[in-house]
């Protein structure tokens, strides 16, 4: 009797997972008969072909070609990680898997449907999402939003569809936050962009359940260039989540996305990224938001996987009282370089920003924090605080911290703190003296280190994040 009770207790204590998923098997790929596959390399013809296939208005083709020109002329950045091994000439820049986007998972070709089943997307959609977009290589293959949200006027579709169906809204904001000539990879994205999410929240509407987009690279030597545009009208609220994974190959792939957010007065936008790229992906992403009066923009950015990631989500605080929260976490394992951080540009009075960065490097991995706090003249009473912590787990691994502070106004309060070091022996000893193995203790400490991030995530994603960290930590004790 007593034994039975104990069993029951044990069962209750076992954490109940919302979604059962094998987090160690993201690296698979499936065979797909692509409808269109651009020949490798980049040229005017390919850009024109992409625009033609998409049947785009003339202004968009012109925009693409202008961007291509800039991309060709702009040198690679001279700072940061080594990008000289990106095989620009061997990449496929456009790969179209299906002809017509589905609004039901059953309508998708078997291989693609199975891919997303394995990744747990349809199940997640049923359980706790207000809408889902799923991108497979170059195109969004599935998109759906809950009816009640659609009725309130929320638009959530892929970016190509938005260009056709909401041309005025689209043109008003597209490319205004990240211009085509912002940097080399924003130029590349502007030239060959395809897919991504378009999200419009009408004035005063609060979307209380997250909307999600899933980006999947399936083919080898592939460039994925989605483009996301979020427009939050005054006093609206939304939480958008993106996840990214890819099939594992020995050849290199490139992911160069552009994300633009316009948070109009009083709007509140939270953008969460849970990236777990395969180790052969170069991930070079430009993410930027404009925040108007009293708007709040939050970037929650988790960077796991990839060969090289360069990503500094930024917020331009354009209106009085606007606020930016950037929480960036990174994990660099063997051969990986995570060059991440955040930027806040204070252009109006009474604005505030907080940047929290946490990184762990292991097995020769390299993490860099790179950030900028800029206060322009007149942005009085700006407040900003940056905190960066890095843990280096072994002798092979490395971490740099490079914070820029450009302060051109005196009525401000700007602070920055950083620490770099190892896991404290005391903490390890404490946990191990209570019966944990060194591996378990280390994993627990690292999970705790990231807690500031995980506690901000919806439960399902917090579980996923902790599992991913656990996987990355496997073999941490040599």
């Amino acid at each position, binding site marked *: 009797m007593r034994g039975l009770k104990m069993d029951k207790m044990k069962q209750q204590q076992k954490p109940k997972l919302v979604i059962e998923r094998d987090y160690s098997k993201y690296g698979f790929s499936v065979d797909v008969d692509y409808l269109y596959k651009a020949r490798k390399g980049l040229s005017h013809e390919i850009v024109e072909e992409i625009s033609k296939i998409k049947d785009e208005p003339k202004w968009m083709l012109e925009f693409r070609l202008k961007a291509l020109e800039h991309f060709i002329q702009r040198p690679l950045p001279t*700072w940061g990680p080594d990008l000289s091994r990106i095989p620009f000439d061997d990449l496929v820049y456009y790969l179209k898997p299906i002809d017509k986007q589905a609004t039901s998972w059953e309508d998708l070709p078997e291989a693609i449907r199975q891919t997303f089943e394995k990744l747990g997307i349809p199940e997640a959609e049923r359980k706790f999402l207000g809408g889902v977009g799923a991108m497979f290589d170059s195109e969004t293959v599935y998109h759906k939003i809950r009816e009640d949200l659609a009725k309130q006027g929320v638009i959530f579709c892929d970016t190509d569809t938005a260009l056709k169906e909401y041309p005025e809204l689209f043109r008003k904001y597209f490319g205004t936050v990240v211009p085509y000539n912002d940097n080399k990879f924003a130029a590349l994205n502007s030239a060959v962009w395809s897919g991504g999410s378009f999200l419009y929240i009408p004035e005063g509407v609060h979307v209380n359940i997250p909307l999600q987009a899933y980006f999947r690279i399936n083919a080898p030597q592939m460039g994925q260039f989605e483009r996301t545009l979020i427009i939050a009208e005054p006093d609206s609220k939304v939480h958008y989540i993106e996840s990214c994974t890819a099939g594992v190959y020995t050849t290199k792939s490139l992911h160069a996305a552009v994300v633009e957010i316009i948070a109009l007065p009083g709007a509140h936008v939270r953008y969460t990224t849970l990236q777990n790229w395969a180790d052969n992906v170069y991930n070079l992403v430009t993410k930027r938001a404009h925040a108007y009066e009293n708007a709040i923009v939050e970037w929650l950015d988790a960077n796991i996987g990839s060969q090289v990631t360069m990503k500094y989500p930024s917020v331009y605080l354009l209106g009085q009282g606007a606020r930016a929260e950037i929480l960036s976490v990174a994990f660099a394992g063997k051969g990986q370089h995570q060059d991440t951080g955040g930027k806040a540009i204070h252009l109006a009075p009474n604005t505030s920003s907080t940047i929290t960065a946490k990184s762990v490097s292991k097995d020769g991995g390299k993490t860099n924090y790179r950030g900028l706090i800029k206060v322009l003249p007149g942005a009085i009473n700006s407040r900003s605080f940056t905190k960066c912590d890095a843990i280096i787990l072994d002798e092979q691994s490395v*971490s740099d*911290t490079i914070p*820029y*502070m450009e*302060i051109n106004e*005196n009525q*401000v309060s700007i602070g920055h703190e*950083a620490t770099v*070091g190892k896991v404290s022996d005391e903490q390890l000893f404490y946990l191990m003296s209570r019966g944990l193995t060194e591996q378990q203790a280390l994993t627990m400490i690292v999970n705790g280190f990231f807690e500031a991030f995980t506690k901000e995530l919806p439960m399902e994603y917090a579980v996923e994040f902790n599992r991913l960290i656990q996987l990355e930590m496997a073999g941490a004790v040599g």
Partner: protein
Amino acid sequence: MLVTDFLQMIKNRSEPSWLKQRRLDTFTKFSQLKMPDSKEEEWRYIDISQVNLDNVKIDGYTDISIDFGNDVIVLLMKEALNKFSDMINEHAFSLFTDADKFVSFVSSFWNNGVFVYVPKNVQAELPVTVKINNTNNPVYSLVVLDENSKLNFVEENVADKINPIVSDKINPIVSTSVTEIFVKENSKLNFFCSQILPENLYSFYYKRASVERGAEINWFLGSFGAKLSRWKVETFLKGENAKCQKYGIYAGNKNQHHDIITKTFHLVPHTSNNILVKGVLTGRASSVYRGLIRIEKNAQQTLSYMGAHTLLLSNKAKSNNIPSLEIEANDVRATHGSSVGQLEEEKLFYLMSRGLDRKLAENIIVEGFLETVLNKFTSDEVREKFRAITNERLLNA
């Protein structure tokens, strides 16, 4: 300067032949190097468009006065070249194998400076005090502390011969210097340096120190004058248990620009470093503090801290802080803290509510802000001097 002029110049000097040859080598390098570009990271926030080292006119010797006790050897460089030629040959510019335009300018043209040698086991009682009267002439100084010795060194940069009112916009006065410091095993050097130059000068001062096992260097820096002032202070901790501390203050007014770079390189295990730099700016003054702590792969068990704080007294003042860490070892603790802010109204109110007028209340807060740096100074005299200069510069501005 043309090669022929250069050859004439070195021919006229009574210098050892190794030095003439070396000057010729570095002059070739100097002539090939371009002035730094604002695209280069270290020159990003500094406007040196008025400075062209290729046109700087050099003549005569820099006037330097020295004062010291009789237990150490201190000579003007031009004299030291006769007596200590070998030691100078061995050390000169050996820490600057990566010389840029400014350093190669100094190594080609330097004509005076200070040579300091503290023999083994000598704990110098009196400080060595050096007053350099700057002009366009570059200055090279060499400080060698032999094993188990100790020295307090005070360097003050002025430019009494320059008319502070006349400013030549085309060819402004450019004051340059390179100082190399060797702190050998178990020695300790307190190095105080300041510049109180007139505000029509540009100054570029490079200082590098090599610190060996069990040795210690403490820097105390004060940047006050000049139109544009660049300090680059670098420390190489080469032996176990080597220590470095850097304390610096700057006070800028009008259109001044103060630009301070400090770098500490932890090359071996068990070394420590502590940096605290604070500045106060008023008027349209601007500043850049660029700090780097680099911990090499095998430099385990290292402790390193860097603090950089700026107080802005006017809304036209600007400050850029870039405190970077490059950490290649894991069993270390490296931290930094940085802030930029204004005088806090709350503190002002507190003082004023006790009967102080606003001006005095502001003075007290500024003094308090800098005090955490100044109270680390091991010389009362230098501390008092820095305090007085800061007050004069900021409060009467």
